């Protein structure tokens, strides 16, 4: 599906701030994969997602989607195939618009024309889709999104993204800004949607338990490299302790933020 070949990303090349954020990464994402990504702050996780989504272009290397080279395609073109959710719940929806208008805009990818497609039939369809969230939002379709909580907005972003049937979804700590209860709800929704709709997904999380519990593959990143990968049987047998040991073995140093990794939230 998506393949990264020898990708490196250098920020501020040739300046005093030169920073090798991604260092020669090779990665093949197969259809149906649900990959969790862990690593300390600054490891390059978000940068990796930015490279896949196209908001930045790699300094070296090539990215292909289903065999076609997309290394230089702008983000908006890749967005037709790649869905993305950020940590900030405000980034997925427009606050100044009603729920139904937001759903109209995200209903279909690509340029919008001069027709008005929001009609009663579509509203019915939206209602049916919103019911899946079990948040009662189907009764609030005319309300401005500014009135919704972060958890509700993130759940909506997730639903709207899933409905547009992307080939790959990228979740960048998408529950980290939510309170524990909402984080759990959104995470479970995520897992459910990925299964039900047979999506291919990558999920960055700072919670090692989640990284182990969800998905079929796990990547550990450090200093711009993927230093450890587990899948299948090996992944199922992982524990937080084993992961931390792995890091010690590979890097001969203690994990920069053992504390956050062991956090139970």
């Amino acid at each position: 599906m998506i393949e990264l070949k020898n990708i490196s990303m250098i920020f501020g090349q040739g300046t005093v701030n030169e920073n090798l954020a991604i260092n020669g990464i090779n990665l093949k994402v197969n259809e149906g994969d649900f990959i969790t990504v862990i690593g300390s702050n600054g490891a390059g996780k978000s940068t990796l997602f930015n490279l896949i989504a196209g908001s930045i272009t790699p300094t070296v290397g090539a990215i292909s989607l289903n065999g076609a080279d997309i290394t230089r395609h702008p983000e908006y073109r890749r967005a037709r195939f790649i869905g993305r959710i950020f940590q900030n719940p405000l980034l997925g929806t427009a606050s100044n618009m009603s729920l139904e208008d937001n759903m109209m805009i995200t209903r279909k990818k690509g340029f919008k024309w001069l027709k008005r497609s929001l009609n009663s039939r579509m509203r019915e369809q939206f209602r049916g889709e919103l019911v899946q969230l079990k948040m009662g939002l189907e009764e609030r379709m005319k309300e401005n999104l500014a009135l919704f909580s972060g958890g509700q907005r993130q759940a909506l972003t997730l639903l709207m993204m899933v409905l547009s049937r992307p080939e790959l979804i990228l979740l960048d700590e998408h529950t980290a800004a939510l309170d524990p209860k909402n984080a759990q709800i959104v995470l479970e929704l995520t897992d459910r949607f990925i299964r039900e709709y047979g999506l291919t997904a990558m999920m960055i999380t700072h919670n090692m338990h989640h990284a182990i519990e969800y998905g079929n593959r796990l990547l550990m990143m450090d200093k711009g490299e993927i230093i450890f990968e587990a899948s299948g049987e090996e992944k199922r047998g992982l524990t937080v302790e084993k992961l931390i040991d792995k890091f010690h073995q590979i890097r001969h140093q203690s994990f920069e933020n053992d504390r956050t990794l062991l956090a139970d939230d």
Partner: protein
Amino acid sequence: MIEGIFVEGLIYGIMVLGVFISFRILDFPDLTVDGSFPLGAAIMAQCILSGTSLSLALLLAFAGGVLAGVVTSLIHNHLKVPNLLAGILTMTMLYSVNIRVLGNRANVPLLNHDTVLTKVTELLSGIVPDDYILLVFFVLVAMAIKLLLDIFFRTDLGMTIGAMGNNEQMVISQGVNPMTLKSIGLGLSNGLVALSGAFAAQYLGFADVGLGQGIIISGLASVMIGEFLILKSNRIGVLTLCALLGSVCFYAVMYVGRYYGYVVNMTPNDLNLIKGVLIIILLVLTQGKKLKKSAVKTVVKND
């Protein structure tokens, strides 16, 4: 003459709708306006002098404005120039263009020529009392444009443009190129501004390169007055109405200042100072609201 108070507000109200689109819907502070307003006036004047059909002239003025807006968006999008600077660049270039359009003159009088306004006066005299013909005409024109805009911003395209002003990332994530949307939005905005300039030239009886000087400030002040007048709403129909009413109020105040300011020892030269002070007062008054708004945002973030 009392109707003159409102006529100006309605003519310039078309410009205010344009400014509303760039500043409020696109969230793009566009200074092209100071150049596209006299551009519309110049194109209209040149068409009138050369005997071009008046409806075609209005269309050309609109098209000229669209082009100006698109130039600004292209400078901004492709050269990664900040939006303010992109607008100033186009505005500066337009100064020369406008003099060219006026036939290497800075001012072209239109008295004793047939204009849209003389035609309308002929047509409506007898039906509407003479003093109110222009008022009726411009109420109709301004409302028609307002309604068309309302319809446009309820279409899929219009709504997506609205979403971009609020959240560009969302639009990118939808697979839409935000540059295209900005070009469309700025084109529409400046088209309206130029159309307003075309009507203003006919109303004033001349076109002048200096016609647009500081017009953006008047436009912005009108938008802010409109927002201040009416409760916050996200319905496009209410917002465009606010913009028009804001314009009518603003130009009524300016009108009074111009004709009766001498009572308090004020000259027309003081008007720019008054406009600036007015905007500062409005900014201070709305600051409170803004703070509340950002507080709401932080709550959502920490939710």
